[in-house]
């Protein structure tokens, strides 16, 4: 199914889809037409019924007249013959009508028989009439009246049957419905009652039973008159609401109805007075009754005629509506068909252009594709495709897209051409580079053999170094022994230094004692000096006193001089001691300072020796560590020797690899040549496209 649908062309698909729409529309149309037709047939049936009823009304009028002529005391043979003739003609016409439309309104023999109403058939009516006509003249007045009444009843029943059979009782519009009400029910009943009254009065004469008249009068006045009047008024009122106003109905019916009503009013009044007043003359009523009957007959006929007009009008309206519906449907169909055609043409035609352009592109003729596209879509050339605002039309968009595609393709192809050239150049360069690479690989091979020789030398060197490291290890062991010997010496030095410091401290203490002694000496000397001074003063005063004593004091003066000389000598000695003491004191001070400096230095030396001791310990540790480290170095050297042999192996592999890479390079050169060929092939392929030279 899907494949089948895909194979169809675009216009065929459109046709199929429009068919799918047309089918339900056609079904709907059939329903609409049949509905209208039903309504038209309905109205037509009513018309047939109305025509038949008109004939029946005429018949009942004629029958009543015949009965009255027969019953008249002074017979008028001329009029009777004419009436009989008219009755024959009317019956013939009725038979013809029944022949024509009896089946439709269900009054033909078959349908009446089906409804068990054979006595109502027109054939039975004709039979009755023949009997009445052959025996009428010889009949008793009462017998004749009964026969006529039977015929009138048959006519009434027929009218009722027709009213039902022709759907008149189901009439859908109010105006016609009311008219039917008048024409089929009310007016025939009223006419029948009037006829009966006339018959009574005619047969009874002046000795008529007046009490029998009263119900007729009451019914005629209170029911028939009101019903007929109201129904006609309603029909006239409702006329404008259904299928337009009928002018003939509005003009013809009201005067006839007024005439009938006034005649009926007068006759009923007369009938009342006749019924209630025994003195009233029945003969006086006869002309009134006849006039009223005639007016009723006229109104009946007119009502039926107007009903037919209304029904015709309805049929015409329905026909118009049907025509309008049909024409609208046809118009819609035609328009949709045109649209389908237009759209399919609008799609298929540009598509064929696009297909041609695509074929051109496939063939490589881009110039022709572009020019074909330009010719097909006006103003949609690739040159101005970008400048235009994009259209909402998909076809235009397709054209623009194709144009853009062609442009892009052109640029792509030119790009490919350029790239091909570049690739060509590049492949040549690659070939040159590969040649360089070949040379480089050869150099690499040479370098590899050099590295090989070097690593061999390195291996030798490493084993030499290993031996040297063994020697270093033994030397380091000796050094460690020496250092531990040095450590003991240093410990001795440290203890000696400690003793030195203590001795210096003792010297310092001794010097301090000397210093205090000198201070004591100084005090003694100052005391001596003071004593010498006092002695000097004393000698001076003694000399003065001796002088004052004159020549008695001469000896004393000598003593005084000696004392002064001793004092001077004492002072001189004290001065000498003082100078010596001060010299000594300064020496002691110097000595104290020296000792302090010495103690400081000794302390510093001791600290330094301690430091040296620590350093030597550290050195000793290092020297002890040196042995294992040398062993590590030795191991490292062995590893190095192994590594260099591995390097030699690797170098041999590298050399093999270089041989391989030389082979690969030769392969690569071949590939580059192939690339060159491929690029030339591609350029030839691109050259197949007819490109516009745009530069």
């Amino acid at each position, binding site marked *: 199914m899907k494949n089948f649908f895909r194979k169809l062309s675009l216009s065929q698909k459109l046709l199929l889809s429009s068919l799918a729409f047309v089918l339900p529309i056609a079904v709907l149309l059939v329903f609409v037409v049949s509905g209208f037709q039903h309504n038209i047939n309905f109205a037509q049936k009513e018309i047939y019924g109305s025509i038949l009823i008109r004939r029946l009304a005429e018949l009942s009028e004629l029958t009543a007249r015949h009965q009255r002529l027969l019953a008249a005391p002074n017979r008028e043979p001329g009029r009777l013959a004419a009436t009989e003739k008219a009755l024959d003609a009317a019956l013939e016409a009725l038979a013809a009508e029944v022949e024509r439309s009896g089946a439709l309104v269900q009054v033909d023999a078959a349908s009446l028989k089906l409804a068990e109403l054979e006595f109502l058939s027109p054939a039975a009516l004709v039979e009755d009439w023949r009997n009445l006509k052959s025996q009428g003249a010889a009949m008793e007045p009462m017998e004749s009246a009964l026969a006529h009444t039977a015929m009138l009843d048959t006519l009434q029943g027929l009218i009722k049957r027709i009213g039902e059979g022709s759907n008149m009782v189901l009439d859908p519009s109010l105006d016609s419905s009311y008219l039917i009400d008048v024409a089929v029910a009310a007016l025939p009943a009223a006419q029948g009652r009037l006829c009966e009254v006339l018959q009574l009065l005619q047969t009874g004469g002046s000795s008529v039973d007046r009490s029998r008249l009263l119900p007729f009068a009451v019914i005629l006045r209170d029911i028939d008159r009101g019903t007929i009047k109201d129904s006609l008024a309603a029909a006239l009122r409702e006329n404008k609401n259904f299928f337009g106003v009928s002018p003939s109905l509005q003009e013809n019916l009201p005067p006839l109805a007024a005439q009938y009503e006034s005649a009926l009013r007068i006759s009923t009044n007369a009938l009342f007075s006749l019924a209630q007043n025994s003195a009233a003359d029945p003969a006086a009523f006869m002309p009134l009754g006849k006039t009223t009957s005639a007016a009723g007959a006229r109104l009946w006929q007119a009502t039926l005629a107007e009903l037919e007009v209304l029904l015709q009008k309805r049929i015409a309206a329905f026909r118009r509506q049907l025509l309008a519906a049909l024409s609208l449907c046809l118009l819609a169909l035609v328009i949709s068909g045109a649209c389908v055609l237009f759209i399919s043409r609008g799609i298929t035609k540009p598509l064929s252009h696009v297909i041609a352009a695509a074929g051109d592109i496939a063939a490589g003729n881009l110039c022709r594709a572009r020019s074909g596209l330009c010719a097909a879509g006006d103003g949609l050339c690739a040159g101005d495709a970008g400048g235009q605002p994009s259209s909402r039309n998909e076809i235009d968009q397709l054209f623009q897209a194709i144009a853009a595609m062609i442009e892009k393709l052109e640029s792509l192809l030119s790009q490919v051409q350029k790239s091909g050239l570049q690739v060509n150049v590049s492949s040549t360069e690659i070939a040159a580079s590969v040649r360089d690479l070949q040379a480089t690989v050869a150099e690499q091979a040479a370098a590899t053999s050099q590295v090989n020789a070097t690593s061999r030398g390195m291996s030798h060197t490493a084993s030499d170094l290993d031996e040297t490291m063994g020697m270093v290890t033994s030397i380091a062991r000796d050094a460690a022994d020496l250092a531990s010997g040095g450590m003991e010496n240093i410990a001795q030095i440290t203890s000696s230094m400690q003793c030195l410091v203590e001795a210096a401290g003792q010297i310092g203490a001794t010097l301090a004692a000397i210093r205090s002694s000198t201070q004591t000496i100084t005090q003694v000397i100052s005391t001596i000096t003071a004593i010498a001074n006092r002695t000097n*003063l004393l000698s*001076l005063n003694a000399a003065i006193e001796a002088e004052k004593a004159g020549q008695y004091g001469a000896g004393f003066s000598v003593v005084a001089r000696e004392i002064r000389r001793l004092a001077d000598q004492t002072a001189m000695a004290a001065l000498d001691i003082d100078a010596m003491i001060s010299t000594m004191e300064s020496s002691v001070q110097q000595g104290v300072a020296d000792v302090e400096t010495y103690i400081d230095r000794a302390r510093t030396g001791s600290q330094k020796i301690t430091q040296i001791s620590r350093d030597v310990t550290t050195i000793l540790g290092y020297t002890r560590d040196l042995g294992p480290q040398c062993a590590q170095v030795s191991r490292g050297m062995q590893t190095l020797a192994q590594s260099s042999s591995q390097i030699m192996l690797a170098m041999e592999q590298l050399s093999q690899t270089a041989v391989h890479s030389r082979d690969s390079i030769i392969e690569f050169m071949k590939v580059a040549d192939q690339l060159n060929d491929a690029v030339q092939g591609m350029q030839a392929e691109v050259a197949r496209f007819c490109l516009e030279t745009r530069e």
Partner: protein
Amino acid sequence: MLLVVFHAGEERFGLDAGQIIEIVPLVRLGPVQHAPAWVAGLFNYRGSVAPVIDVIMMLKGEPARNLLSTRILLVNYPGRRGESHVLGLLAERVLETIACSPDDFQTSGIATPDAPYLGGVLVDGGRMLRRITLAELLPPEVQELLFNSRGRAG
């Protein structure tokens, strides 16, 4: 005659021992306000107050240094009206006496009207010594000041 020798700077001066009551060591002196600079202070001599003159200040214009040999020479100062007053003279290096005769002195040959107390010059062992005439040591107005005020006070 005997001369008590004292020094003012490098110069040597001599004072007649006959006029000296006693030589005492330098002691703390009582202060004298609003007196000339060469008045060193007041000295308590055996219960009576004696003024002390700084001879070094008078001769050299510098106050006497506080040496062991700086001593106070207590003299009987001859007043102009024949009375004598106890006076202290503060001098440096009062250490020795020289015995000499009055003829040994020579005049200096230079008149010194501003310093009338400078007497003759004695050469002793190669070194010169100048004799101080005690009675001329203090100017009359100073004598008036020192002794009269004392007299009035006494």
